[in-house]
C-alpha cells in the first residue's frame, strides 16, 4: 500500500535569526491513529531538528502541547490528523501569548496570575492530622470537582477575545481555579480572594463570549465559573451598601 502523506504548515519564529514569523511546510507520512503531535515529532526527529514545541504526556493531562490547529486552540496530542484531511494542516503558537520560539509561548504571565489568587486551601476550620480528614460528601465534592480538572493548558486564554484585548484580564482558567477553592466546603478563603475577583481584571473583565468553555479539553467550563462569580461579585457589591460591616458578611 502506498504511504499516505499530509502537508503540515508550521508558523516558525526563531528570535535569534528571524525578523518575523514565517510559514514553513513539511510533508509527513501518516496513519489514521496519528495525532498532530506525532506529526510534529516526525518532523523534529526525521526532517528538521530545529522545530521547537513543548510536549510530554501524550494523553491530554500534562497540558504542555496546546497550539493553534487550523486556527483553533487544541491539545496537539488529542487532535488527530485523520480529522484534518486532506490538509494542509496549519499549526501556530497559541494566540494571545508572546511567542518565545516557534510553537513555544511565554507561560509566565499565566503563572503570575495563578500565583496571585491564593490557589490553595485556606481552611475554614484548621484541623490537625490526628483529627483525620475533613468530612466532605460526594455532593459537596461535586460543587468544585469539575473546576479542579483544569490542566493549565491555556487553550481558554487563546480562545478568549477579552484576554486578546487586555493581557491584564485574569482570564478563564485562573478564575475557574479561584472558583474551585471558593466553593470547596473546606475552604474559608473567599474573602481573601475577593479583591482579585472583583477587580476590573477579574470576573467583570469577561464579556461572556463562552468560547473558553467550548475549547476546554477537560470539560471545566470556565465560563460557568466566571458567571457564577459575577452573581456573587454583584451580591458583594450590594452588600457593601447594605451592611455596615462590609462585603464579607
Amino acid at each position: 500500500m502506498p504511504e499516505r502523506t499530509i502537508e503540515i504548515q508550521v508558523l516558525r519564529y526563531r528570535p535569534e535569526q528571524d525578523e518575523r514569523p514565517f510559514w514553513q511546510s513539511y510533508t509527513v507520512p501518516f496513519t489514521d491513529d496519528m495525532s498532530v503531535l506525532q506529526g510534529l515529532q516526525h518532523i523534529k526527529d526525521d526532517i528538521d531538528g530545529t522545530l521547537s514545541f513543548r510536549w510530554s504526556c501524550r494523553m491530554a493531562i500534562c497540558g504542555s502541547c496546546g497550539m493553534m490547529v487550523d486556527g483553533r486552540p487544541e491539545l496537539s496530542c488529542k487532535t488527530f490528523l485523520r480529522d484534518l484531511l486532506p490538509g494542509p494542516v496549519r499549526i501556530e503558537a497559541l494566540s494571545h501569548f508572546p511567542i518565545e520560539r516557534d510553537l513555544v509561548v511565554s507561560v509566565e504571565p499565566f503563572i503570575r496570575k495563578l500565583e496571585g489568587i491564593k490557589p490553595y486551601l485556606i481552611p475554614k476550620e484548621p484541623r490537625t492530622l490526628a483529627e483525620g480528614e475533613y468530612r466532605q460528601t460526594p455532593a459537596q465534592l461535586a460543587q468544585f470537582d469539575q473546576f479542579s480538572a483544569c490542566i493549565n493548558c491555556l487553550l481558554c486564554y487563546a480562545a478568549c477575545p477579552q484576554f486578546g484585548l487586555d493581557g491584564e484580564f485574569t482570564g478563564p482558567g485562573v478564575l475557574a481555579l479561584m472558583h474551585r477553592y471558593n466553593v470547596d466546603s473546606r475552604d474559608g478563603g473567599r474573602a481573601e480572594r475577593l479583591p482579585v475577583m472583583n477587580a476590573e481584571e477579574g470576573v467583570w473583565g469577561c464579556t461572556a463570549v463562552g468560547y473558553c468553555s467550548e475549547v476546554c479539553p477537560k470539560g471545566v467550563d470556565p465560563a460557568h465559573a466566571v458567571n457564577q462569580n459575577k452573581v456573587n461579585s454583584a451580591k458583594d457589591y450590594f452588600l457593601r451598601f447594605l451592611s455596615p460591616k462590609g462585603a464579607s458578611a
Partner: protein
Amino acid sequence: MDIFKADVAIVGAGGGGLRAAIAAAEADPAASIALVSKVYPMRSHTVAAEGGAAAVTQAHDSLEAHFHDTVSGGDWLCEQDVVEYFVARAHDEMVQMEHWGCPWSRTPDGRANVRAFGGMKIERTWFAADKTGFHMLHTLFQTSIRYPSIRRFDEHFCVDLVVDDGRVQGVVVIDVASGEFKLIQARSVVIATGGAGRVFRENTNGGIVTGDGMALAYRHGVPLRDMEFVQYHPTCMPGTGLLFTEACRGEGGFLLNKDGYRYLQDYGLGPAEPTPRNKAMELGPRDRLSQAYWHEKQKGRTVSDPHGEVVHLDLRHLGEKKLRERLPQIYELAVEYLGVDPAKAPIPVLPAVHYTMGGIAADGRTAAPLQGLYSVGECSSVGIHGANRLGSNSLTELLVFGKLAGEEALRHAKRVAHGNASVAAARAEAARAQAQALVLRGDGTERIAALRREMARSMEDGCGIYRTASTMQATCDKLAELKERYRRVRLDDTSRVWNTEWLLAIELGYLLDVAQAMAHSALARRESRGSHQRLDGFEQRDDVNFLKHSLAHFDGAGAPRISYGDVKITRSPPGTRAYGAAGEQAEAERKAKEAAHA
C-alpha cells in the same frame, strides 16, 4: 554565569520534589530552597498517575498487612525496615494532602474512599477518580505557592551536579528560554527527577521521563541499585503505550484472551470468580500479569492488532454510569484515542514499560552515599519496591519520602557551610563547556532520533518481560555501540533560545547510561525474581546467591561494574510468593508458623 545561593536545591518538581520543598520550607521558613524543573511543575509526570495512593485506612486493615503485601509483592528484595517506616506514615500523608485540598473521592458519609488494587489484600488505595496523580500534583504545586522561601527555576534543565571536597555543593542548569547557564550553589541537593521508562520503546511514560537525575548521580560515582527490575504494566494502549489504570481491574474489569477466556486462571492466579477477589486473578501483581500475557502470546491465544498482539480489558459489565464516575479518564482515552466505547466493547491492551523499581542508592532516610545528596521518588531506590512494585505504593512514596528528603536535606544544610565558590564556579564552567560541545560539534553524522530508536528497540528485545543471557548480551553490545556513536551526534540546531534538540541530545546521553546500568545488572542476575524473569536455566529464585541488591557503578566510556549489597530482613524471611487460592494457603501457613514461634 549567574550564581544563586540556596540552602537546599531540589532537582525535579513533580510530587516528590514539591513535597520535599514544602517540608523544608515548613521546617525552617528562613531557609532558602531552590526548586529546579525542566518543565513547569504541573507538567511533571506525576500528573499521569491514575489509580491511587496506598495507605492503611479501614478498621479491618493493618500496617502489618500492607507490609506483607509490599514485601512479598517485591519478591523479598525490599528493605524491610524502610517498608515499616513507609506503611506507618502513609495515612498521615494522605490526610495531609486532604487538608491541602486534594479532591479525594468520598464515601457517601464524606470520608475518603478506598479502592482495591493489584497485590493488595485489603482495599487501601485512596483515589481521586482516575486522575489521582494529576490532583496530587496540582494540589502540591498550588500549595507550594504559599511558601515564599521556595524559589522556583521553572524550565531550567539540569546538566550536572557540582561535587567538590567529597560532597555535593550545587547544580548547574540551563535556562531553556535563553540558553543561559546558571550555577545554583547549595549545601544539600535532592534529586527528584522521576524514572527512565523512555529507554524502552513501548512505554507509558511522558517524553520527559529520561532518567536525568539517575544518570547525574551515577556519573558522580553514586551506584544505581536494582536497575534490572523494570515494571511492565499489563494494560496499555497498543502503539502509544498509554496507560489504562489498574483501577480498571480494581473496579472489577476482566482480562480476556482471543477466546473470551479469563486466562489468568491458567497461571496460578485463580480461581476465576465473577466479582474480584483481592490478590487473585485480575488483582494479581503486575509482573505476574504481564508474564501471563507473554505466555498467552506464545500459545497463539492473543488477538492481532496493527500495533501488536493484544488481549482484551473488558469493562462492559461495570456499566456506563460507574465507568463515568470512577474511570472518566479511561473512558475518554478509549473513546478518543481508540474509538472504543468501553461500556459497549472491550479495550485492546498489551503490556508496556511503566516504572523503574531501581534507582539512585539511598539509605532509609533518602541519603545517597555521596555526602549532601538525597533522592526521592522513581529516581530513587530507597528500598520499598524490591523486585516488583505494587500499584499505588509509588504515589504514597512521593509523599512519605518527599517529606523525609526535604527535612533531611535541610538538616544537612544546617550542619555544613557553602563550599569554595571559585571551585564551584570552575566546575560549572567545565559543565557548560561540555554541554555546549554537543552543539558545536560540526563533523558529526549521527542523528539523535535514530540512536534513541535503536536503543529503545534493543532494550525491548533484550530486557523485556522474559530475558536470556544471549539477548541481554546483545543489548549490552548494542548499547556500547550506541555510546560510541553518540560521540558523533550531529544537531540541526545551533541556536540558544529554546534549543530543544540540544536538550534531547543531553537526555539521550542520560538514557544511554541508565540503559547500560539496567542491561548489565540484568545480565549479571542469574536467577528469576519479580519483574526479572529468565528463560535460560535461571527460572527459579535463588536466595542463596541473589537475595542481594545489585549496584551498578559508572565506569566512564566502559561497561558498568556490578557489585552486590545486603537486603535488610526484619520480620519476613523469604517465603513462597503466591496469589489466588495458592496465595491464601501460603498466607495461612505463614501465620501458623508465626503463631508457633510466638
